[in-house]
């Protein structure tokens, strides 16, 4: 209540200010967000890119969600849930009164249908893998069945999931876009075009989509959450070069820079006193790292990998990108549960690194290849790493390629070292397990996988499974401790050299209001569209 009142005060103060200055270009209760790249689809089963991820979160709701501005899970479309003591059964009671934009009330059938649709290979969903713990997943994803035996509609307002293994991340999975319920009748009617005319159940509904130019959301008047959304309308303008979008923001034509502050103008904008209070800094669930292929010499020797960890001058790299990141010493980012703030990691020590290399039998170093994405600033970062490695005698030839080519080389194991920037792991959900399985676990160390270090430690896989079996919310701390151990153990083996964690800097127009945390929400990027407001 206090927050609401103080925001009202702030809003009226801003309204007074606005009355004194020329009227802003956009109408009251409406805001303009710019993006450079197209919005490909707004189908929650398919959308998985920078632009559409948060847009979909405002068009659709899931069983679970996060408290705005935090990583704290809360029931959303579910009114309550129950977890069986062995952690293999999750039962959700649906809220009454949640309706799709076509007016129909949401039922448990919709929940079941929507997840089966995602897992069904015909949908070609990038999210199918998230539901792997539900019973019957293999049959559906293999195309032998269309119904997941592990989802039961108990009654129209109750849905039960039976899992093939205890899965502590399951509540997060129920908050991820791919699990959002869609209305079957509309998917059947629109077919493959559902993604361009989505019918959701979220705070906003789609009002207009002019391909390549504009997507407009308008308030869903029947939204079940009181007082939300705070805006009447959001206009997403597509194809906007970030440099120009910044000029337009400064002239009051744009409210939020969807792609952030252009790197080339970052320092100038950040240090300009006129922008004080308009730039919000926050952590991001991101780590930039160098992978070393542990399957091939010389990186099959742990001493070589540790030497690389000690050779990289992370502070210098952070400076190269204008301090838009903090140095990292472990796979998890600081804002992720399970991060070990007491862990010191491998300090920068070229002499020690040389010693380790000599012990590993490479007193004169060796020659290798470092792959990197070819978009700025990644080539510059890769060059800095190259120089650091040269200082200890490792001659790394740079291969800067298009993103898809680097991903290919990593997945087939032909790249000895990869700088992950531009393709790096930004968490799908705020849980440490999301930083393990596909990128550091045995499951990802396969042809076409994302574990580019090809690191596979059966013992850690076992520990990970045990940690994820701690499904009781009361054992949260114990589970975090288990994950902390796993990631520190990984650092002993050093398949990665973690380099930095990107910080987020969200710039907004003065008229956009809301708690600071909403502008650096860990899940909704760039901002929490449902909860921010504008000065009238």
């Amino acid at each position, binding site marked *: 209540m206090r927050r609401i009142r103080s925001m009202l005060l702030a809003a009226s103060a801003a309204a007074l200010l606005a009355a004194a200055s020329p009227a802003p270009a956009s109408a009251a209760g409406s805001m303009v967000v710019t993006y450079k790249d197209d919005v*490909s*689809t707004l*189908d929650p089963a398919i959308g998985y890119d920078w632009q559409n991820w948060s847009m979909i979160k405002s068009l659709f709701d899931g069983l679970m969600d996060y408290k705005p501005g935090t990583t704290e899970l809360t029931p959303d479309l579910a009114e309550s849930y129950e977890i069986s003591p062995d952690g293999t059964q999750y039962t959700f009671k649906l809220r009454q009164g949640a309706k799709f934009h076509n007016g129909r009330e949401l039922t448990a059938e919709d929940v079941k249908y929507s997840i089966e649709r995602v897992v069904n290979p015909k949908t*070609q969903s990038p999210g199918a893998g998230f539901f792997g713990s539900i019973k019957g997943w293999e049959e559906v994803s293999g195309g032998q069945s269309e119904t997941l035996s592990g989802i039961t509609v108990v009654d129209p307002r109750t849905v039960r999931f039976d899992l093939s293994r205890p899965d502590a991340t399951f509540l997060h999975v129920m908050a991820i876009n791919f699990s959002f319920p869609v209305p079957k009748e509309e998917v059947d009617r629109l077919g493959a075009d559902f993604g361009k005319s989505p019918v959701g159940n979220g705070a906003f509904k789609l009002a207009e989509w002019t391909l390549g130019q504009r997507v407009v959301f308008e308030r869903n008047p029947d939204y079940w959450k009181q007082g939300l959304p705070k805006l009447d309308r959001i206009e997403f*303008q597509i*194809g906007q070069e970030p*440099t120009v979008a910044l000029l337009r923001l400064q*002239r009051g034509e744009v409210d939020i820079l969807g792609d952030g502050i252009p790197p080339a103008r970052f320092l100038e904008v950040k240090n300009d006193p006129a922008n004080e209070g308009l730039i919000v800094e926050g952590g991001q669930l991101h780590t930039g790292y160098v992978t070393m292929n542990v399957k091939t010499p010389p990186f099959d020797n742990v001493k070589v990998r540790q030497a690389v960890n000690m050779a990289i001058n992370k502070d210098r790299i952070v400076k190269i990108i204008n301090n838009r990141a903090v140095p990292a010493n472990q796979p998890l980012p600081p804002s992720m549960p399970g991060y070990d703030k007491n862990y010191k990691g491998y300090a920068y020590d070229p002499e020690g690194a040389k010693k380790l290399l000599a012990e590993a039998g490479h007193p004169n170093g060796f020659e290798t290849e470092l792959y990197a994405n070819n978009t700025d600033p990644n080539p510059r970062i890769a060059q800095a790493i190259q120089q650091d490695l040269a200082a200890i005698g490792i001659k790394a030839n740079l291969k800067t390629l298009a993103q898809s080519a680097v991903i290919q080389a990593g997945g087939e194991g032909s790249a000895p070292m990869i700088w992950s920037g531009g393709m790096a*792991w930004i968490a799908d959900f705020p849980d440490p397990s999301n930083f393990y399985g596909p990128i550091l676990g045995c499951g990802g160390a396969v042809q076409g996988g994302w574990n580019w270090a090809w690191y596979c430690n059966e013992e850690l896989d076992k520990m990970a499974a045990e940690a994820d079996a701690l499904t009781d919310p009361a054992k949260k701390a114990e589970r975090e401790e288990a994950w902390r151990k796993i990631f520190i153990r990984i650092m002993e083996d050093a398949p990665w050299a973690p380099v930095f964690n990107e910080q987020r800097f969200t710039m907004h127009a003065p008229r956009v209001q809301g708690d600071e945390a909403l502008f650096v929400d860990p899940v909704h990027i760039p901002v929490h569209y449902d909860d921010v407001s504008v000065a009238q």
Partner: protein
Amino acid sequence: MVRFLLSRLAQSVFILIGVTMITFALAFLVPADPVRMIAGRNATPTVVENIRHQLGLDRPIPVQYASYLTRLAQGDLGRSYMQRTDVSTLIASRLPATLLLMAGAIFFELLIGLSAGIWAATRRGRFSDKAVMVASFVGVSAPHFLLGLLLLYVFANLLGLFPLGGYGTWRHLVLPALTLGIAGGGWYGRVMRSSMVDVLRQDYIRTARAKGLKERKVVLVHALRNAILPIVAMIGLDIGIFMSGAVVVESVYGWPGIGQLAWQAIQVIDIPIIMGVTLTAAVAIVIGNLVADLVTPFIDPRVRL
């Protein structure tokens, strides 16, 4: 004339088939896998193979190519992998903006190129000739990105004469068209100048002058008609180039043309869009050249088709 048209159309079909073949081969030679871009980073190998099968990408490349051609013959450009929309819809939605920018750009190219070329040719060797040619060189060499931002900054941000990017009214069109026009106009100017210089040396021009025609009339009526022929051919080529999109200019000005679509598709190896845009551009080049060839006899009656 009819025979010329028929033979050119027959040639065009072969050119277009060749273009599809090369583009298709290139798309598969890229060391990257479109399926993995669709499947994302959480996909298990089963999911990846399922998607590959759904899209028919597990078949031999010649079979895929044959099926692409079959569908193409029925007017079906396929569906985008990432946008999950018909490629024809995506291209059609960007066609008006592309055509408009092309028209605007060619207008400025002609305006700048012809005036600069004629001005310089009639003052050959003098300071003004050299100045114009240096300026045209600067225009040609200026990076589109820089020129675009500069014009945007001065005319839109500082002077407020035009909107800061976007699409909709004629005022939105001026700056992007001018950016392309300055660059292209430099080429046009240089070609126009040398062509004009050649023509002005010819006997019939001396005759025209000898019979007492005003210099203005000699240059703009008698000489221009012959000197402009290479420019007509250049417009034909430009139509093709602009149809494949002016990526950088579109991006600076937020202009929803085909170039942005193509650029984004290349990043994620969205083969159906890449094929569709390439084909559209190829068709435009073929048509542009054909039109240029057809127009030539009207300008220069000595040319017979």
